[in-house]
């Protein structure tokens, strides 16, 4: 069957609180769970719904993202015959027009062109920072069934599952019909122990609704972004339905929520909810050898990618590709990204090592679960604890 969905990925996401991890990469290319990047999740949703194209709206240079996506063939987004990945860089526009475009503002013309040339009937809008695994076909069935103009995905969570100064929003759900959306609230206006309907910023729209909106937004020079789009459509009189997502969700808004999302995967229920469902998560294939665990290795509740060599102790941790862990090294509650090396006697607790970090003999690194210690890419950590940034 031909895909009925034309998807737009809004990757103009806020990365300030995720620094230094987002120094050289957008939120969408943050590494996650040994072998993935956050973008893999919405991309895999597209793959599982057999979408043939995706438009990406990116801020900054997108360099690391392009390197990961390449032709998009991993997710069936190859462009050799129709379809393809279409990228739109905010930056490019800026330098072309000489004006400082507002962060997150829609580029109406690019959207218009992309959507009109597709034969698909519905527009899907997704992001990457609300980690989840959404079945777009189910969403589509729901949307066709309800026959409204917009369907927005939400999850019922507690207010304090989110960070204090979260920039996300919550939906007001109709008391009579729990699938109808009546309005949108800022999270910051809500109390800590309330149950809320988190706006997952993933939605399905009728193509015509979307094009009408673009036309109006352009003519009236509106500044509408994903966050306030729903309030806008409700004000415009559209019928907006809410689709409840019941799978794993984590809003990645700062270092701690990023760290927690990774640690969550060590809980089998969370891991299975995100990965072992009918909709597998795909990432770019890399040639690799199996991981070797030496006779001195002690492993307890940990996840690894291929291509590691492990002789030390690893507990409750997430280890990416090509990591070497020497005999006598001790790693606990940590995230070790690819190409890192941990020498004998080093001790790491509640640490995030970015890519290609070298921890020398006997060095100690310790953060707390509330405040994990982040070591920047290419750093060398010396035995005396001194850190040289790369």
């Amino acid at each position: 069957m031909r895909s009925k969905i034309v998807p737009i990925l809004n990757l103009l996401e806020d990365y300030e609180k995720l620094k230094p991890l987002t120094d050289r990469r957008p939120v969408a290319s943050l590494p996650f769970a040994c072998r993935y990047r956050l973008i893999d999740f919405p991309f895999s949703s597209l793959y599982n719904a057999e979408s043939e194209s995706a438009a990406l709206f990116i801020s900054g240079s997108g360099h690391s993202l392009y390197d990961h996506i390449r032709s998009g063939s991993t997710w069936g987004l190859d462009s050799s015959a129709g379809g393809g990945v279409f990228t739109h860089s905010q930056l490019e526009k800026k330098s072309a027009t000489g004006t400082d475009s507002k962060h997150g503002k829609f580029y109406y013309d690019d959207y218009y062109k992309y959507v009109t040339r597709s034969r698909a009937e519905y527009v899907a809008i997704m992001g990457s920072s609300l980690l989840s695994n959404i079945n777009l076909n189910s969403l589509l069935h729901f949307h066709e069934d309800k026959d409204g103009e917009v369907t927005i995905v939400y999850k019922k969570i507690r207010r304090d599952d989110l960070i204090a100064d979260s920039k996300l929003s919550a939906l007001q759900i109709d008391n009579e019909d729990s699938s109808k959306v009546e309005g949108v609230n800022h999270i910051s206006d809500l109390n800590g122990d309330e149950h809320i309907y988190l706006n997952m910023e993933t939605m399905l729209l009728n193509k015509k609704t979307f094009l009408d909106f673009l036309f109006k937004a352009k003519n009236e020079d509106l500044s509408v972004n994903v966050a306030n789009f729903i309030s806008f459509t409700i004000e415009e009189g559209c019928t907006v339905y809410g689709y409840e997502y019941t799978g794993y969700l984590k809003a990645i808004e700062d270092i701690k929520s990023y760290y927690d999302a990774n640690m969550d995967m060590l809980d089998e229920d969370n891991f299975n909810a995100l990965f072992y469902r009918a909709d597998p998560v795909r990432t770019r294939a890399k040639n690799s050898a199996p991981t070797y665990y030496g006779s001195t290795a002690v492993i307890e509740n940990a996840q690894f990618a291929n291509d590691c060599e492990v002789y030390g102790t690893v507990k409750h941790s997430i280890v990416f590709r090509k990591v070497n862990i020497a005999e006598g090294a001790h790693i606990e509650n940590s995230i070790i990204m690819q190409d890192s090396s941990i020498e004998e006697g080093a001790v790491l607790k509640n640490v995030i090592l970015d890519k290609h970090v070298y921890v020398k003999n006997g060095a100690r690194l310790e953060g707390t679960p509330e405040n994990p210690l982040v070591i920047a890419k290419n750093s060398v950590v010396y035995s005396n604890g001194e850190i040289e940034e790369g």
Partner: protein
Amino acid sequence: MKTETVAMILAGGQGSRLGKLTKQIAKPAVPFGGNYRIIDFAISNCANSGIKNVGVVTQYQPLVLNSHVGNGSSWGLNRHNGGATILQPYSSVDGEKFFKGTAHAIYQNIDYIDQKDPEYVVVLSGDHIYKMDYEKMLEYHKRKDANLTVGVMPVPWEDTSRFGVMNTDKTDRIIEFQEKPEHAKSNLASMGIYIFNWARLKQYLVDNQSKNRQMEDFGHHVIPAYLRNSEAVYAYQFEGYWKDVGTIESLWSANMEFLDPDHELNIRDRDWRVYSRNPNTTPQFLTASARVTDSMITDGCYIAGEVTHSILSHNVKVGKNSVIKDSFVMPNAVIGENVTIDKAIIGEGAHIYDGAEVVGIEEDIAVVGYGEEVGGYSDEK
């Protein structure tokens, strides 16, 4: 672009000594080493030797092999006009073309080779585990101004009767060939690796076929004919690790050797990588009850039991209190709780139910076939 060399990998054999492991798939497609299939070694050798055109000649149960090899992109072969091509039987105005032997398989695919118009053809087997730089062998072939160079390796004298043995003079020129001799004059065994000057080989194959002379097999017909005609035939000696995994025991022991981190096959050598088609799967998950030592584990595994000196391929599940020792487990096998596996090969997608035992000895490795089920039905999903 001129093609200097085309490699022809003979992957047609059934490999019946591997028993149930080669009933539905050809021997070169049998899984190996956690992340690989046997043929990956020969194809990776080609890629690492800078050979970009690889014909894979196959006629026995080719589906798995075809989808594994594809266009060769997993090995980076689909570049610069290169690529892997699966060569199966076909019909033409001359009739139907099945392959009757190693040389006949080349004869039937002359069109493919001529399309690439190479100077040299490297003929290889698809079922050996080794790392070899064919570019060095080709340099030797050129230096010797040979018409045929045969890859050889020294074997223990007592084993010579199982091989084709090459007697060479002081210049390494082959002066005599003994097929499985009772009394060998040399301990240099043929590895089934040949470099031919294509124009000459084609002449031999076409002329003799047209004269109805048998030219079906390299060992039985082509090499003797070359020697009879005093063609320049040289032996190129290979020194590294080489293993024919033609039996259950040799497949098992090759896996056990592969597992050793200090083994000369060194799978982690970034300068000579062994490539394969990589499945899309999850990270490997070792739970709090897992105990994994001296083992290779592949992405997608979920391990709650004990694994010692074993190789687990991707997506293998091992339940609590199960023990896997000295074994090779192929992809997607599911092993329940309280299972004991020792000195065994577990086939792809096999299911070992709770409490079952699969135990072999070194001389008689236990084998569970593809998709085979062992043990009673439990209440697990």
